């Protein structure tokens, strides 16, 4: 009695069939195989066999669609479409680079650093002597931030003063809303009245857009210090200085109104 193969269901004789029935069974098997492989017949040179439907053994010969030549050569390479649909290789970038677009094409680029601060005067500059000048300040940053740590004068009640680019005039300084102010000052105050015996203070001054050559310059000062009489108390200063020069800020000078600078450290940061 004939049975069928497990996958394609072709008819085959069972082991107990009579020999005389073998020819018939083999013919049936051949016909079954022939029918199943019918779709493989035909085709022309270069064609490829593709599935025609989800039905088993249902194939069709068809043209081989043009393949893409792999342009990649190195680990990490990627492919992008260049000149329409032409595949092109984009070599892997370097560590830290990000994928960006330049002139309409993808590329790897180092991301622009933002918000970082760089100490310009290495290690800080001690505040001592008649004056301290930080010169040749590079114009490559967006802003400057000056930090005076524990500034101290040799003469009690003195302030730390600042001049820009060596100019001895052309300064103003205000708090709140003011109008019609002249540039009658000769410095910008960086601290309140200081204590010459002990120092517990910070002065932070922001010089925004310091490198531009079209506007007057500003110095936004925010400082506190211990009181010059009662050292356990404090004083503070919040004022904005204005300097009527359009030149980029390239040097800052610090000094006291009397006596010398007697202690503390100036740190000048470039801010991106």
């Amino acid at each position, binding site marked *: 009695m004939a049975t069928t193969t497990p996958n394609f269901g072709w008819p085959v004789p069972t082991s107990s069939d009579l020999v005389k029935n073998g020819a018939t069974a083999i013919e049936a098997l051949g016909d079954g195989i022939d029918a199943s492989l019918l779709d493989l017949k035909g085709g022309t040179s270069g064609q490829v066999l593709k599935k025609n439907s989800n039905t088993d053994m249902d194939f069709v010969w068809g043209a081989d669609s043009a393949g893409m030549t792999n342009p990649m050569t190195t680990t990490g390479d990627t492919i992008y479409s260049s000149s329409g649909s032409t595949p092109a290789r984009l070599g892997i970038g370097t560590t830290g680079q990000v994928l960006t677009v330049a002139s309409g094409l993808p590329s790897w680029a180092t991301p622009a650093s933002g918000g970082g601060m760089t100490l310009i005067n290495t290690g800080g*500059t001690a505040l001592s002597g*008649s*004056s301290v000048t930080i010169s040749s300040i*590079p114009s490559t940053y967006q802003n400057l931030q000056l930090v005076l740590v524990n500034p101290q004068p040799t003469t009690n009640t003195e302030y730390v003063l600042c001049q820009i680019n060596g100019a*001895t005039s052309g300064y103003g300084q205000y708090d709140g809303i003011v109008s019609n102010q002249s540039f009658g*000052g000769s*410095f910008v105050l960086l601290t309140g009245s200081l204590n010459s015996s002990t120092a517990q203070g910070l002065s932070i001054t922001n010089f925004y857009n310091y490198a531009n050559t079209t506007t007057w310059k500003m110095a936004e000062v925010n400082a506190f210090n211990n009181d010059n009489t009662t050292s356990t108390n404090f004083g503070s200063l919040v004022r904005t200085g204005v300097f009527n020069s359009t030149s980029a800020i390239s040097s800052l000078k610090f000094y006291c*109104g009397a006596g010398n600078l007697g202690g503390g450290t100036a740190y000048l940061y470039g801010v991106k």
Partner: protein
Amino acid sequence: MTKLFKTIYNCETDETIVRELNDQELAEHESLQLAAAQRKAEIEAKATAQMAAQAKLAALGLTADDLKALGL
């Protein structure tokens, strides 16, 4: 007379120079300190006047906020 020294830090070269002021720089420094002293006197006079005004207000039972409330 006590010698005066100035410190100059050069950001390009990372060099710090400490040197004595020459005669011209001494004169300039004295001039700067004179101007600073005048300005300091102005600042302190203003602060003193402000404190005196606040004391007068307090004696009347008023504060600066009261004046602001009056639009003064």
